[in-house]
């Protein structure tokens, strides 16, 4: 009489139990792969682009009957922004101009765009990060309405340091739009994620959902607040306010449909990356010169 060999797999015939086990595992793995692929944009193809979460009828409508904006058709553009961190001098003029342009609250804690300072002290592998909202930086200027970095690293040895401007990434798959219960925030066909302030109920789900912390809550207006690449400016052929005032050309803005636009040249001629690619949001702000610590 032979004893069944339970130690090795070869000798065991495919039992019903094992077959079902295999079936279940492969279904789980396959499903995970498929969803991961779509999350990082692998399943997308080039060609006429459908808006975020649009059905066929709505897509046809957005092509044939675009919003009535004078001298502007959203089907003609695909906006994107570049940030060349090698050039940023941390003057925070972008932040001040943004607040002026968009009537954002004039304090250090509400902002649509901001700048972070990453400093690696000598012998350290981790960056110390601060921004204009740091109490020491506020104390330095003596006012929350004047934005300036203090010079706290004057007398210490610094390995390397750089500034990183941050703003809303206007993601291809915006988490904030997915969670909005009222349809107050939405992704336009040509890129920017906008907020319809008359529909926002101030529930702040979107503030929680954003992986980049790009949204804030405006207590005065009772609505969520975020960068929209100055949609009222770009639809009139102007640059966003932060790009307009940046004195060093750190911020680059343009239309990806135009191969000779500043942003197309920037992306083509530089090695660029996006923040937190693992989140699957597919951002439209491209960074040059950041460390992996920058998220």
């Amino acid at each position, binding site marked *: 009489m032979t004893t069944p060999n339970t130690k090795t797999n070869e000798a065991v015939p495919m039992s019903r139990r094992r077959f079902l086990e295999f079936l279940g595992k492969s279904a789980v793995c396959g499903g995970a792969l498929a969803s991961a692929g779509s999350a990082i944009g692998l399943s997308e193809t080039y060609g006429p682009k459908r808006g*975020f*979460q*649009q059905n066929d009828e709505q897509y046809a*409508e*957005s092509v044939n*009957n675009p*919003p009535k*904006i004078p001298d*502007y058709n*959203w089907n003609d553009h695909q906006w994107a922004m570049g940030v060349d961190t090698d*050039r940023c*001098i*941390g*003057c*925070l*003029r972008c932040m*001040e*101009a943004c*607040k*002026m*342009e968009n*009537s*954002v609250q*004039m304090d250090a804690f509400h902002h649509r765009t901001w700048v972070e300072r990453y*400093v690696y002290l000598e012998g350290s592998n981790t960056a110390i990060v601060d921004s204009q909202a740091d109490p020491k930086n506020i104390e330095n200027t003596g006012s929350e309405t004047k934005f*300036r*970095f203090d*010079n706290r*690293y004057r007398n210490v040895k610094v390995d390397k340091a750089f*500034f990183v401007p941050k703003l809303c990434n206007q993601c291809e798959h915006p988490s904030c739009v997915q969670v909005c219960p009222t*349809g107050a925030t*939405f*992704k336009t066909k040509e890129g920017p994620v*906008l907020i*319809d*302030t*008359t*529909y926002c109920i101030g529930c702040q789900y979107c503030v929680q959902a954003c992986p980049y912390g790009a949204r804030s809550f405006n207590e*005065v*207006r*009772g609505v969520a607040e975020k960068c929209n690449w100055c*949609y*009222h400016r770009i*639809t*009139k052929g*102007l640059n966003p*306010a932060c790009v*307009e*005032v*940046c*004195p*060093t*050309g750190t911020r*680059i803005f343009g239309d990806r449909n135009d191969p000779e636009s*500043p942003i197309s*040249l*920037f992306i083509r*001629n*530089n090695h660029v990356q996006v923040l937190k690619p693992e989140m699957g949001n597919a951002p439209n702000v491209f960074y*040059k010169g950041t460390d992996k610590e920058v998220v």
Partner: protein
Amino acid sequence: MPKHIVRLLVLIAVVAIVVFSTKKFLTPDTFYQYGHYRGDAVAEIASKIPKLQGSASCEPCHKKAYTEWTDGIHHRATRKGAIQGVVFKYGPGCEVCHTGPAGNHPSNEAMPLSIEDQVTSITHPEIKVHPANVPGRKLMLSPEDMKGICLNCHEKMEARPIEQRQIEVASHSGEELCTKCHNPHSPRIIYASLPQGRRGNAQAGKAIAAACTGCHGEAGMSTSPAFPNLAGQHFDFLVDSLKGFKTGIRKNDMMSPMVAGLNESDIRNVAAYFSRFSCGVSGGDKAKAELGKAKAANCAACHSAGGLYGPGAPGVSGVPTWPNLAGQNAEYLASTLKSYQDGSRAHPVMTSVAKTLNDADIDHLSAYYASMKCK
């Protein structure tokens, strides 16, 4: 069908009709036009009026400042390289420093409430104007404001790229305001075109100068090597020095009481009187002067006609608020440097410079500048 079931169905139908018609009534026509949002909102947000108007919008009214800017380094500071040689960006424009955007100016009518602000006034009727729109943000900047504005970009700081021009405030200017030497619209100093201060009347100064001639000589060439020659000295420097004695920033047992009785216009007049004379060379020890030449390279940035940006006659200061040294009495120069060392005279730049010198250096430098041509 039983009666109670019929009633229930009717009730459900009525509720359904009410709910659906209410939803139909409350949902705007454009809500599902392009997606799960109000289609009209896109055009509404786009209709907001831009506030930042760009530098060109300043030109019609502010021609002088605009020309200064377009001719200056702030306008021409282009950066190439990020996208392979394409010049895509000029240096800071008007609204970078004058951050009350042009749309906020000259009147509030020029800037209607934005959509967000209209929402504010609906949900919070007590708030009439949004804080960011309140005047108070000054478009015209005072020299004191300017310092903060300049340092926003030009303070030497870790994390700033080295291509950016940066200054160590303490050694560059100390407490001095940036606008003393720089025109913010065109900050690179072109020495020849520096604005002249308000002049005094040399004729009126002659009567006051009578009291000075005992030490400083009839024509500004002093009677003793311990006192400075004044002939041909910069008018602005003489005014600053006299004011310094008057306010106590500079202290001297002779000069302080002499100046105490002079008013603003007296100071200008007497400064004009002495600065008009042609200067003379008092001369110094040739061997020492030769030794001082190398050391004087450190002084050339301020005390030479070319300044930071080129060669020029040594000892003739390009900026009128800094003194000419060429031809000055060696003994006086040496005692001045020593007074910076011991703290009896103080200046943000000179105090730190003087402390780097030893007695021999001072001796050599004084001889060097005393023997330089002063014209």
